[in-house]
C-alpha cells in the first residue's frame, strides 16, 4: 500500500461512472480542461456518458466542419457553455468560382439559434458562408458586449453597415477578420468608428476586399490600439501610410496597400515599416520598389509575394536576403532558379505555396516551376510542413526526393498545369507511392494531374499508402472504375474527399464511398454523370445526404459571388454525413437524392 501504482482494475473503477468512483467530477473537469486537440476531445467524449457530459461542459471550442452536418439546436444542447465556435459552409470549390452565389450555407439559422443562448460565446468564425447585415445585427445584439473575435472568412452578403454596428457595439473586440469577403461598400465610416471606440484591437484584416478606407483612420486606429499586432488591408497607396507606420509601434504583420506610382522609388522612400515587422505582403510591388524591404529582410519570417510584379530575378535577389523565412507564398514566376535560392537560403522554411501565375507568356517571365525547383527546395528546406505547388513539369524522382527529405510534411498539394504539352515522366505512380510511404505525418493531400498522369495502379497506391490522411483532392487520376474502387478500399482514415475531372462512373463513385469507413464528405465535379444521378443511390444510407447538380448549359448563366460567371456545366455531386436530415434550403438547381420511402 502507499506508493504503489494502482492496478488497472482499480483505475478503471476510479474513472468509471459508478457512484463509488474515486475521481470526483471536479478532478475530471480539471484534467479534461487541459485536453485541447479536437481528435483527443472526440475520443474522450466517447469513453462513457460521464466523460461525454464533462467533455461537453469543458470544451472551449467547436468547429462544425460543414454547416449542414448538424442542426444548431443540437450544438446548443450538447455544448451550452461554448466559448468559441467555427462553422464552415460552401464547398472549397467556391474559392475557385465553381459554386454559384445562391447555393446556400446561410449564417442566419446559426445566429438565430445560438447567439443569445450561448452565454459564454466570445469568438465566432464563419467560413464561406452567406451572411447578411441582419445576421450581424442579431449577433451584436446578443453578444456584442463580450465579443472578442469575429472572423468572416470568404463570406458574402453583408455591407459596411454591419461593420459600423460591430465597431460601435463591440468594445471588447480583439480580432476583426474579413479577408476576401464580398462586402457592399457604403462608406469608410466603419473604420473611423472602430478606431474611435476600440482600444484593444490586436488583429484587423480586410485583405483582398474592395473596401475603401481613409489612411487617417488607420493612423487613428494605430494611436488608440497600442496592441495592434496585425493589419492587412485592401488597396491603399503605401505612401499614404507613413503616418500609420510611425504610430503602429507594435506591428508585426502587414499586408496589402499598393504601389501606385511605379518607377519612382522616391515616393516610397519615406515608407518605414515599424521595427517589429516580420510578415509582409505588399501588393503590386515591382522591381524598383523592392528595396524598401531590404533594410529588414533578415528579420522577415513570412513573405507573401503572390500579388507583386516581381520578376524571377527579383525573387532570386530578394529571397537571398531572407534567411529566416518560415512562410513563403509566391506565384510560379519564381521559377526553378528562384526555388534554388529558396533551397539554399531559407533553411527554416515551414510553409511554401507556389501559386499559378498568368498563362500569358508575355506577362510571366519563366515558364513556371518544375521538378528541378521542387527538388532543390526539398533538399534545402528539411523542415517543410506544407507544400502547395502549381507545376509545369514533374517527375517521379522529384516526388521521391520530397518524400525522402521532407519528413515533416503534413500537407502536400501538387497541381500539374495543363499548358505544357510534354511532361517529362508520366505516370507518377512510383513517385507518389514513394512520397506517401515516406511522409507518415501527412494529413492533407492534393494531386491534380492530367489524363495519363496516374494509372489505376498509381491510384491504388494512393489508397494503399494513405495512412492517416484525412483530406484529399484528386484530379484527372486513374484510368477506370477499378482504380477508384481499389483506391477506396485502402483509405481507412479518409474523412473528406474532393474529386474533379475524373473518368469514373456514378456507380463506381457510390461503391467507392461505401468502402471508406471514415468518409464524411465527398464532392465531385466532372465524371461520367447521368442526367438524373440515379446510380448515386447505391450509396444511400441513413444519416447520409446526397445532393446532385445535373449537368446543364444554363449553369453558364449563373453568377458567382464576385460577378464572374460560372462556366462549368458539368454535374456536381455533394454527399455528406448529416444529423440534420435533408437540406430544406437547396436552390432549384440542386437536387437532393434519396430512395423512395
Amino acid at each position, binding site marked *: 500500500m502507499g506508493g504503489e501504482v494502482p492496478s488497472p482494475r482499480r483505475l478503471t473503477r476510479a474513472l468509471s461512472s459508478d457512484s463509488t468512483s474515486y475521481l470526483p467530477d471536479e478532478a475530471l473537469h480539471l484534467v479534461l480542461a487541459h485536453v485541447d486537440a479536437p481528435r483527443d476531445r472526440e475520443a474522450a467524449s466517447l469513453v462513457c456518458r460521464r466523460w461525454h457530459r464533462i467533455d461537453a461542459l469543458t470544451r472551449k471550442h467547436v468547429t462544425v466542419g460543414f454547416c449542414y452536418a448538424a442542426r444548431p439546436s443540437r450544438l446548443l444542447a450538447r455544448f451550452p457553455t461554448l466559448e468559441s465556435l467555427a462553422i464552415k459552409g460552401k464547398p472549397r470549390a467556391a*474559392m*475557385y*468560382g*465553381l459554386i454559384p452565389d445562391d447555393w446556400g450555407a446561410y449564417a442566419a439559422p446559426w445566429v438565430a439559434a445560438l447567439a443569445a443562448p450561448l452565454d459564454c460565446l466570445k469568438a465566432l468564425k464563419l467560413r464561406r458562408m452567406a451572411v447578411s447585415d441582419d445576421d450581424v445585427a442579431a449577433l451584436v445584439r446578443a453578444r456584442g458586449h463580450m465579443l472578442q473575435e469575429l472572423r468572416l472568412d470568404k463570406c458574402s452578403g453583408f455591407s459596411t453597415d454591419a461593420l459600423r454596428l460591430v465597431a460601435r457595439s463591440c468594445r471588447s473586440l480583439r480580432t476583426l477578420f474579413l479577408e*476576401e469577403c464580398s462586402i457592399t461598400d457604403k462608406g469608410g465610416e466603419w473604420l473611423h468608428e472602430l478606431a474611435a471606440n476600440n482600444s484593444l484591437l490586436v488583429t484587423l484584416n480586410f485583405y483582398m476586399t474592395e473596401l475603401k478606407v481613409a489612411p487617417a483612420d488607420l493612423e487613428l486606429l494605430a494611436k488608440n490600439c497600442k496592441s495592434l499586432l496585425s493589419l492587412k488591408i485592401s488597396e491603399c497607396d503605401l505612401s499614404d501610410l507613413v503616418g500609420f507606420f510611425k504610430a503602429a509601434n507594435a506591428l508585426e504583420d502587414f499586408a496589402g496597400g499598393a504601389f501606385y506610382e*511605379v*518607377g519612382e522609388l522616391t515616393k516610397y522612400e519615406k515608407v518605414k515599416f515599424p521595427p517589429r515587422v516580420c510578415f509582409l505582403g505588399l*501588393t*503590386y510591388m*515591382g522591381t524598383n520598389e523592392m528595396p524598401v524591404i531590404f533594410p529588414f529582410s533578415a528579420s522577415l519570417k513570412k513573405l507573401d509575394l*503572390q500579388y507583386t*510584379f516581381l*520578376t524571377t*530575378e527579383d525573387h532570386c535577389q530578394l529571397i537571398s536576403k531572407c534567411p529566416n523565412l518560415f512562410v513563403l507564398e509566391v*506565384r510560379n514566376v519564381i521559377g526553378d*532558379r528562384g526555388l534554388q535560392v529558396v533551397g539554399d537560403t531559407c533553411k527554416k522554411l515551414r510553409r511554401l505555396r507556389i*501559386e*499559378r*501565375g*498568368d*498563362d*500569358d*507568356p*508575355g*506577362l510571366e*517571365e*519563366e*515558364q513556371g516551376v518544375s521538378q528541378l525547383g521542387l527538388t532543390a527546395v526539398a533538399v534545402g528546406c528539411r523542415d517543410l510542413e506544407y507544400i502547395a505547388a502549381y507545376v509545369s513539369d514533374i517527375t517521379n524522382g522529384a516526388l521521391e526526393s520530397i518524400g525522402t527529405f521532407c519528413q515533416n510534411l503534413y500537407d502536400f498539394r501538387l497541381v500539374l*498545369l*495543363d499548358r505544357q*504539352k*510534354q511532361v*517529362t*515522366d*508520366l*505516370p507518377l*505512380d*512510383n513517385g507518389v507511392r514513394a512520397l506517401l510511404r515516406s511522409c507518415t505525418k501527412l494529413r492533407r493531400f492534393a494531386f*491534380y494531374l*492530367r*489524363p*495519363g498522369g496516374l*494509372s489505376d*495502379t498509381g491510384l491504388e497506391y494512393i489508397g494503399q499508402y494513405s495512412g492517416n490522411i484525412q483530406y484529399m483532392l484528386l484530379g484527372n487520376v486513374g*484510368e*477506370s472504375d477499378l482504380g477508384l474502387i481499389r483506391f477506396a478500399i485502402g483509405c481507412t482514415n479518409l474523412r473528406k474527399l474532393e474529386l474533379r*475531372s475524373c*473518368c*469514373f462512373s456514378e456507380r463506381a463513385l457510390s461503391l467507392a464511398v461505401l468502402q471508406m469507413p471514415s468518409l464524411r464528405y465527398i464532392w465531385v*465535379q*466532372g465524371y*461520367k454523370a447521368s442526367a438524373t444521378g440515379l446510380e448515386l443511390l447505391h450509396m444511400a444510407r441513413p444519416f447520409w445526404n446526397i445532393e446532385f447538380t445535373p449537368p446543364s448549359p444554363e449553369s453558364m448563366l449563373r453568377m*458567382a*459571388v*464576385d460577378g*464572374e460567371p*460560372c*462556366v*462549368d456545366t*458539368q454535374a456536381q455531386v455533394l454527399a455528406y454525413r448529416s444529423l440534420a436530415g435533408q437540406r430544406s434550403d437547396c436552390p432549384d438547381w440542386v437536387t437532393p437524392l434519396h430512395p423512395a420511402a
Partner: protein
Amino acid sequence: MTYAEGEGSGKTTMAAAKESSKSSFAVTCGLLSRYLRENKGGALQGLAGLGMAPPATAIEGGAFQPPTTMNLLSGLEDPKPDTVDVELAVDKGQLLQAPTGNQDAHQLTIFYGGKVVVVDNFPSTEVKALLQMANAAGDGAVDRTVPQSMPGPAHSDLPDLPIARRNSLHRFLEKRKGRITAKAPYQANSASSAPSKQANGDKFWLGLGQEVAIKQEI
C-alpha cells in the same frame, strides 16, 4: 526514352515524332523482326503482312482515343499466349492491358506513323536491346510522353475541365492586365525589358512563343 516496367505493367511504347527518321525506322523494323525471330524468346513473327490500322490519334497531346477496330491479321479474337503469329487485341479495352503469359514476358506495343503493332509475350530481357536499336535509329527523336500509352477511353468522352483558378489570384491577374493597358509604361516595359535585363546569360525559355492565352473565367 520512357521505359515503364512496374509490377503490374510491362508496357513499352516507342513513337518517332519526326518524319525524317521514318525511313531509317522502317529499316530498323525489318532488322527488328529478323532479330526477334532469331532470338526466339517472343512470339513475334513476320511484321510484314500487317494490315493498315486506322490512324491512331495524334501522338502529341490531346486525349487518347484507342482505335475501335484493329485490322491486323483478321480473324483472331482471343490472344493465345504461345502462338507464333502476331497477336492482336480486337477489343479496345484489351489493348495495352496487363501482361499475359508468364512473369518475364509482357505485351509490347509499338506505335508508329499511324500503325500499331502489338506483340504478346515479349521477354523483358530483350527490351533493352530493342531500345538500344531504336535509339540508334531514331537518334533520340522519341516522344517521351507516355499518356498515349494509357488507355483512357473515358477521358475522351468527357469534355476537358479547365483547372480552376483561385478567385483572389484571378482578380489580381485581371487587375494587372488592366494596369498594363491603362498605364502603358511601367509593367509593359518591365515585361519587355526583361530580356535586356536578362541579357547576362540567364536562361530564357523559348518555344512558347505566340501562344494565345485562353482567358480563364475562373
